[in-house]
């Protein structure tokens, strides 16, 4: 059952080959069998089976949607009413939100079955899932390597087929990088495409929810249910959502693909370069034209990102003060003690590091040199992309410099860890949509191809990915667990 796509499962459910309850139980069994991957923080077995029962009734009554009865799971950054939402932090280990995130609400309405909450880097700050209070997620392809992050649980759960599809969030590569490391497909939509309401904020101007699955088609189906304007999120954009499945099979003949010369340099790992070249050749066969593009400001993306994201997070995480919810230290002596110990004891190292960096960057006398400058750089990077996307339809690049690294390998060296996101970060600064699609293996570990598109052009990205997946079977490979 776990090898089927959403469309296939929906057909099977309607044909009564098996019920959603049976399907859900099957996935719950897999979740338990592969608990060593540490993909889930919370498994909501009873709620999932209840939802499956309702889904079965709805399917029987004939008004089911494609996702009705499909077992999926949410990254633990999305608030779920009455179910613990930790954001991967000790700070929220006891936090049960009194409300649902907009996308959780939408997927509940669609009848999707939520199996539980997925592991992630603490407050989505990390590129390996090692900063999670609940421990690292293991990569299903090699349990000694990282799943990537911050949506590591989301990626590993799909790769190990513990859920049909999952939600993720992406601030600097947090959907695409773990998708690449785990050999699955993930899409970070245009900033504003998916509501951020109820998605615990890391860096508000960069955060964007998206979908992760084994294929572009499944990503399209899940994204369809998540996307759209939300009056509760002032930064969500009121642009109509097209049918993401309608154009999946459009031929690629004449598609213009841009390759940024800044990304395809001699520095690029030779195996990675070779893998990507194979993928690019496949696209040529599908009728695409390849063109070099230049984006000279890309080299500033990492410093600009770490100034902006840290600045925003230093403010966003101020609400975790031990006063109203979340962790509170034992017997605080006074207010200051309450603040400093609650935050000191409950935040992990990486979170503290970014809060400190952000606080510094926003300080009086430094604001212009850091935050303002970073925003100017951000504008230049956006302009680079806009110019490039005037010449081509989509831009290709690596997702990561290397395949998944070993657990423990980089955690002690933050700068090296930050460089793991070198190819993904600029896209968030520009607010553009981008995907990661499986494009091969290096030493048995999956490698991803990044497809970047124009604003609100998700349908084209999904089409470009789907065409490739029709022609190749990288996305169909599964790890032997």
């Amino acid at each position, binding site marked *: 059952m776990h090898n089927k796509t959403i469309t296939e499962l929906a057909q099977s459910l309607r044909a009564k080959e098996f019920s959603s309850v049976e399907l859900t139980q099957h996935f719950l069994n897999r979740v338990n069998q592969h608990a060593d991957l540490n993909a889930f923080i919370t498994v909501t077995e009873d709620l999932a089976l209840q939802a499956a029962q309702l889904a079965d009734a709805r399917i029987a009554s004939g008004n089911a949607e494609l996702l009705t009865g499909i077992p999926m799971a949410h990254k633990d950054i999305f608030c779920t009413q009455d179910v613990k939402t930790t954001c991967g932090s000790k700070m*929220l280990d006891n936090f049960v939100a009194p409300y649902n995130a907009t996308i959780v609400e939408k997927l509940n309405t669609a009848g999707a079955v939520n199996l539980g909450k997925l592991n992630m880097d603490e407050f989505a700050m990390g590129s390996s899932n090692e900063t999670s209070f609940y421990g690292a997620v293991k990569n299903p392809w090699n349990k000694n390597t990282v799943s990537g992050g911050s949506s590591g649980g989301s990626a590993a759960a799909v790769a190990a087929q513990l859920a049909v599809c999952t939600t993720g969030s992406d601030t600097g590569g947090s959907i695409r990088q773990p998708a690449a490391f785990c050999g699955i497909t993930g899409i970070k939509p245009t900033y504003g495409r998916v509501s951020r309401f109820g998605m615990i904020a890391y860096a508000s101007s960069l955060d964007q929810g998206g979908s992760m699955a084994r294929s572009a088609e499944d990503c399209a189906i899940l994204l369809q249910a998540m996307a759209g304007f939300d009056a509760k*999120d002032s930064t969500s954009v009121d642009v109509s959502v097209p049918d993401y499945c309608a154009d999946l099979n459009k031929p690629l003949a004449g598609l213009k693909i841009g390759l940024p010369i800044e990304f395809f340099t001699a520095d690029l790992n030779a195996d990675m370069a070779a893998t990507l070249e194979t993928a690019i050749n496949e696209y040529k066969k599908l009728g695409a034209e390849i063109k070099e593009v230049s984006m000279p400001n890309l080299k500033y993306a990492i410093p600009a990102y770490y100034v902006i994201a840290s600045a925003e997070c230093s403010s966003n995480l*101020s*609400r975790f003060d031990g006063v109203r919810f979340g962790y509170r230290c034992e017997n605080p002596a006074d207010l200051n003690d309450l*603040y400093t110990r609650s935050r000191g004891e409950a935040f992990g190292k990486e979170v503290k590091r970014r809060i400190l960096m952000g606080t510094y960057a*926003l300080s009086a006398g430094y604001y212009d040199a850091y935050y303002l400058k970073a925003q100017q750089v951000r504008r230049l990077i956006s302009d680079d992309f806009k110019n490039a996307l005037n010449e081509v339809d989509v831009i290709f690049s690596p997702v990561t410099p290397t395949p998944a690294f070993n657990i423990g390998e980089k955690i002690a060296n933050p700068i090296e860890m930050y460089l793991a996101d070198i190819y993904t970060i600029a896209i968030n600064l520009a607010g553009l949509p981008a995907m990661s699609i499986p494009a091969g293996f290096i030493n048995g570990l999956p490698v991803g191809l990044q497809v970047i598109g124009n604003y609100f052009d998700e349908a084209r990205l999904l089409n470009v990915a789907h065409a490739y997946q029709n022609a190749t079977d990288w996305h169909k490979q599964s790890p032997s667990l």
Partner: protein
Amino acid sequence: MNIQWEVVIGLEIHAQLATKSKIFSGAATAYGAEPNTQACVISLGMPGVLPVLNEDAVRKAVIFGMAIEAEIAPYSVFARKNYFYPDLPKGYQISQFELPIVGNGHLDIEVDGETKRIGVTRAHLEEDAGKSLHENFHGATGIDLNRAGTPLLEIVSEPDMRSAKEAVAYMRKIHDLVRYLKICDGNMQEGSFRCDANVSVRPKGQVEFGTRAEIKNINSFKFVEKAINHEVERQIEVIENGGRVVQETRLYDSDKDETRSMRSKEEANDYRYFPDPDLLPVFVSDELKAEIKAALPELPEAKKRRFTTDYKLNDESATILTASRELAGFFENVVKISGCESAICANWITGDLSAALNRADLEITESPINAERFAGLVARIADDTISGKIGKQVFEFLWNGSESADEIIEAQGLRQITDTGAIEAIIDTILAANEKQAEQYRGGNEKMFGFFVGQVMKAMQGKGNPAEINKILKAKLA
């Protein structure tokens, strides 16, 4: 030392905007609810929640800006002011910093008969914090977040005021204006209107400002005057004793009538302002501006000017009657319905009606006598149906009942007697019964005239036309 000191004052006024819901959420803003019953997930700063701007708050800020002839920013930006405090749920206050919605404007105040123009530097939108409750928690602190997220307009003046008196006049003027515009209820006890004062002193003639102290959270006109005067004295004393005023924030203690240091400049928070990424810039379109302008009420100044020219009212009456839109409207209705001289309408409204409303602690909108019934009273006084004295009786009936003035006059038999024959008959009876007093009058005791008027009025139960009585009495006593 014999230096002449000049006082320099600037005020930051916080006016709570009278919107139904909070500035960034749908939670209610009503005052006095049980703690935390008006605190939604957004007021509580729950993880993942986002602010959505209340358009009515923007509209009210624009109304204020137009009333002080200020520039309305076509594009303004919300910023986060970061600091930790238990009743500040998010750890930051959403405010406006570099780009406020209302720019340069001005307002004229009157002190000791002289008009002075006070500049308004800016007015910006922001959210209020909650309240920390220190009583009844046995060593702990209670947090009430009902007020958190209530919209405020912070109105920042230029340092244009030169005395506590001017500062109070300015504060009153703004207070009158925001209530007049119905953008703030002005209730100072409930904290809907409060102010911080920046105070400094400098030797007269010096161009540079002295070092200022900011006095926080003053919530009455009386305290503004006292706090400023006290602070001025303190600063002069410091300087004259060879010291230097330090830039700091001070708190006014109304119980002890003194200000005391809260924090110095060095201890001041670094608020780390930056544009709030959860909110889009606020665009005020020309259409919105035009729409608001068209709906803007006649402003107090213009109305007062019109009342003195069109209705020929004196300055005092015009000032009183234009203090609120409702009172002005009431007056205009009474004039229109009664068709009487505006002076008599004004006298009765500013006199008996205002006094009665004050006694009962009622607003004009809550008056038991509406304009129509009141006009009925004024009309009967003006056409001599009743005297002013009887008018006061009729007023009491109007206040306590629901009949019209005519019905009351009829039912109570209060119609003034102007029939000279009837008056003559009564005068004759009175003169016959008081021959001695008549002799005294004729003998030169002028006071006796009053005695006869009183006797006649008494006999006529106050309904005699005083002018007629005087005329006939004079003739008969000649």
